[in-house]
């Protein structure tokens, strides 16, 4: 009887250790996270929809049905990432995520120069290079300095009612995501 009690106690201590181990390992080994699902749907720098029928079931869905969203995976080892193209919509917002889906930076249309999306994601080292001689193409860009290698950019657009859906869809779909 005492040995059984001892075994149960030992099991509970083990359960605590397993709990912590599973918790910390989940983000590392998960094949269901956003990056994995997006990589099944398309390559790096592909602008993938997260809404509507064209979105693969495996691709995560945008949570709010009154929003449409596109995502683009990037790797800063290829050079700085430049995302542009979304224009005058009722509301749009952008988030930069790291490889694990942690939100690194976000802003919305009120923060941009002309109400249009023009975002450059780069590492601090690349920022020093760009500062030396700012290319004309980046004159109106919002710079996001992030100490990340790979990451995901998500652009979300508000759809006030169904009549806006085609306009928002084509605006978001026309977004360009490139390594430069």
């Amino acid at each position, binding site marked *: 009887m005492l040995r059984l009690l001892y075994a149960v106690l*030992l099991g509970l201590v083990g359960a605590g250790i397993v709990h912590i181990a599973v918790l910390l390992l989940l983000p590392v080994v998960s094949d*269901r996270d956003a990056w994995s*699902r997006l990589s099944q749907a398309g390559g790096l720098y592909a602008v993938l929809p997260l809404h509507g029928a064209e979105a693969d079931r495996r691709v995560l869905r945008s949570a709010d049905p009154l929003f449409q969203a596109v995502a683009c995976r990037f790797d800063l080892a290829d050079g700085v990432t430049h995302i542009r193209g979304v224009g005058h919509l009722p509301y749009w917002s952008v988030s930069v995520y790291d490889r694990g*889906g942690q939100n690194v930076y976000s802003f919305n249309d009120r*923060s941009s120069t002309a109400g249009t999306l023009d975002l450059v994601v780069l590492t601090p080292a690349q920022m020093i290079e760009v500062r030396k001689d700012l290319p004309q193409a980046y004159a109106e860009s919002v710079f996001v300095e992030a100490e990340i290698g790979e990451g995901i950019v998500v652009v979300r657009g508000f759809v*006030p009612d169904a009549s806006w859906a085609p306009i928002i869809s084509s605006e978001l779909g026309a977004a360009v995501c490139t390594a430069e």
Partner: protein
Amino acid sequence: MILRILLFLIVIAIAVGGGTASVWYVLRAQDGIGALTVGDWTAFPSIGTPAADPYARARIARDGILPLGRAEGLAFIAERDSAGNRLRRDCDYRVEGATPTARFWTLVAADPTLAALDHGGRPSAVQSRQILRKADNSFAIAVGPRPAPGNWIRIDGTGSLALVLTLYDTPVTGGAGLGEFELPQVLRTGCDA
């Protein structure tokens, strides 16, 4: 010898089974660790930020979600009404009150996994720019299977229901006055017997 092996197996079973089950349970619970509760509503303000706790990180990895950034918005989830009963899809509810400052907000009826409900291809959702308001700028939105005057979110079917209120471009996410504002009440007005 057999007793010893049996005890060893018990230890392993409790450790592996209990450990994984407890992680599964904690991640599934909506009012888990790191939650901010305001009235009937719960939010995870730190989810997806570098300040997130391990539970929030695991939740992101498991569900493949890309949470809203601080400049984008904050989602509040209600799974119980003001009386503490679980929300059901065959009941009528009234969401009544006012929201904190935000550029706009959306109210979405969802299933327990937070996938939005729809009826005939139309989402079960309203947004703040299309609703009728009272003279004092507060509002009342009916949620239920039966049509209601004023603002109405149509839901069908049976089972559990969750309501998601997302505030967009709001100072609330900046941490200013977190926990010092009011959100609408979720009141049950009727139920199919």
